[in-house]
């Protein structure tokens, strides 16, 4: 008896999961590792902001307005004497989480819409795809602006607006994957044992189709960080005095000629964050598609 078990186990060498392979490949990519380290660092800064920030980000000090970077205020102070470094540290909370949450929201809704369209097929698919056609006929930023003004400003509404804007693209991607996988034999087998449609999609189709979505989504986080700060910049996103990076830039805009440091630092914070996510995304793509690698 024990012989059989050993044999059975031995005959089936454990297949290395695709995920493990990609992670291994990723850890060999120096740039991607730098990206991951930067992201972790920023996440820690965002989480421990109250411990790290030297001042309260909202505390005004009219005696110390427009200070240039100095020992007391490393990044200087703004028009009402708030410490810029503290504001940027706290801003990491908003900027990072808008990006990540918008991505998650867009992926979850996209999965829902895309899997319905892909699995149902026929008229349902047709109607959903035509609606997506209409949504995608609008330039993305324009859709986002109208959505944001429809929902109103604020952190959560910005996340929802960006997530909704991303649904169409994600849904298309997942639909194509599901249509490809739908005709596989194991799905036919599920059908034959009277598996419910919901179960087929959730338990069998999605786990087998989700990896390209995950990659494309993680590559898009950097994009969402920029979009989120653009929305605050034009006054439709997170509202002042919340120290979101885009809002900081928007505040500093009028003082650009005389106090350029107010514009320089928040922008650099955005650029570094986006760079980190892009490095990770690029590494992931290379790991998924070894053909492109050096």
């Amino acid at each position, binding site marked *: 008896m024990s012989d059989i078990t050993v044999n059975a186990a031995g005959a089936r060498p454990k297949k290395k999961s695709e995920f493990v392979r990609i992670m291994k490949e990723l850890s060999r990519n120096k740039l991607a590792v730098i990206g991951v380290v930067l992201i972790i660092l920023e996440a820690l800064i965002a989480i421990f902001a109250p411990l790290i920030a030297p001042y309260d980000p909202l505390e005004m000090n009219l005696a110390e307005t427009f200070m240039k970077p100095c020992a007391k205020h490393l990044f200087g102070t703004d028009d009402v004497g708030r410490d810029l470094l503290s504001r940027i540290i706290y801003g990491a909370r908003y900027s990072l989480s808008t990006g990540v949450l918008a991505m998650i929201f867009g992926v979850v809704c996209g999965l829902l819409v895309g899997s319905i369209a892909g699995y149902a097929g026929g008229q349902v698919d047709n109607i959903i795809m035509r609606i997506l056609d*209409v949504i995608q*006929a609008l*330039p993305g930023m324009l859709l986002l602006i109208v959505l944001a003004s429809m929902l109103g400003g604020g952190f959560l509404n910005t996340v929802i607006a960006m997530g909704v804007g991303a649904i169409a693209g994600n849904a298309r991607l997942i639909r194509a994957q599901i249509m490809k996988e739908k005709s596989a034999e194991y799905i036919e087998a599920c059908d034959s044992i009277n598996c419910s449609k919901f179960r087929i999609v959730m338990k069998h189709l999605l786990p087998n189709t989700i990896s390209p979505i995950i990659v494309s989504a993680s590559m898009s986080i*950097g994009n969402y960080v920029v979009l989120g700060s*653009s929305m605050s910049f034009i006054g439709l996103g997170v509202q002042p005095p919340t120290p979101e990076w885009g809002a900081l830039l928007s505040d500093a805009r009028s003082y650009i000629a005389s106090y350029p440091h107010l514009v320089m630092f928040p922008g650099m914070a955005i650029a*570094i964050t986006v*760079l980190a996510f892009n490095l990770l995304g690029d590494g992931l793509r290379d790991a998924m598609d070894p053909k492109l690698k050096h």
Partner: protein
Amino acid sequence: MGRYILKRILWMIPIILGVTVLVFTMMTICPGDPATIILGSLATEESLAAKRVELGLDQPYLTRLVKYLSDVYLHFNLGSSWISKISIVSELKVRLPRTLVLSLFTTALSFGLGIPFGISAAKNQGKWQDSLCMVIAMIGSSMPNFWLAMMLVLLFAVKLKWLPALGIGAGLAGLKYYILPAFSNFATGMASAARQTRSSMLDVIRSDYITTARAKGVPEKSVINKHALKNALIPIVTLMGTAFGNMLGGALIIETIFSIPGMGTYVIGAVGNRDYPVVQAGTIFLAIVFSIFMLLVDIVYAMIDPRIKALYTAGSKKKVKKEAKA
């Protein structure tokens, strides 16, 4: 081919109608009462009610939607702005070209730089040129365009005083007003152009016919420019269409920074003022421009790829149908 183009143009009609309904509905859901915004918060209840009747806002949603659709598509009347009372068509006539100039300028710039970058990266795969090009592309795509815009203004307009910081100018000399806006918006497009060029060039360079060309003794320059690039261009052209769409969207933000009175400032301002007719008309027009460009991309795509072209000229009706669906 002609049949396919016609089909695509006809298909644009329901899409644009759909966009109209979508935007109209979204503006209706928008919180904020246009009458209050126009008359101010101190206006009396009677005057607000009178204003709502004047704007037609007292009618139910469906009645207004049908009226708007028939105004626009049967009488070609886009109406006029609720705030400034200026006819929308006359505004669009002046503003749309500005946004288009900016977007085209930006697209030309990003692809004009991105494609050579990508080629030189692919040609020297793994060497320093490759790393340099990819690092430039990576940094370029990480900078938010509105921040880059402010930095460029700071350097070239405030410090060096070479270029105007904002506004627009008349005639050919007016083009210099577009230089800073175009440069602030081109980085993302350039990065994706460079990457796409690199990867599709790498794909092509490895194929047998390139080895054959080299074995025949064709000079390397013409192997790259004539043999490889032609085939590598196909995905790049597709990218150009999407990139243009992104530029059109990105232009909205850049326009507000540089105070260019284009579509972006028009629509963003109108969204803030709940000036429904302007938002709707502006969005419809941008969607039409966008769709036309997508169509142009598909046509160019067919032109440069003889395989697709053959499908249209010699192919049966069924094949064309298949392609149109895809």
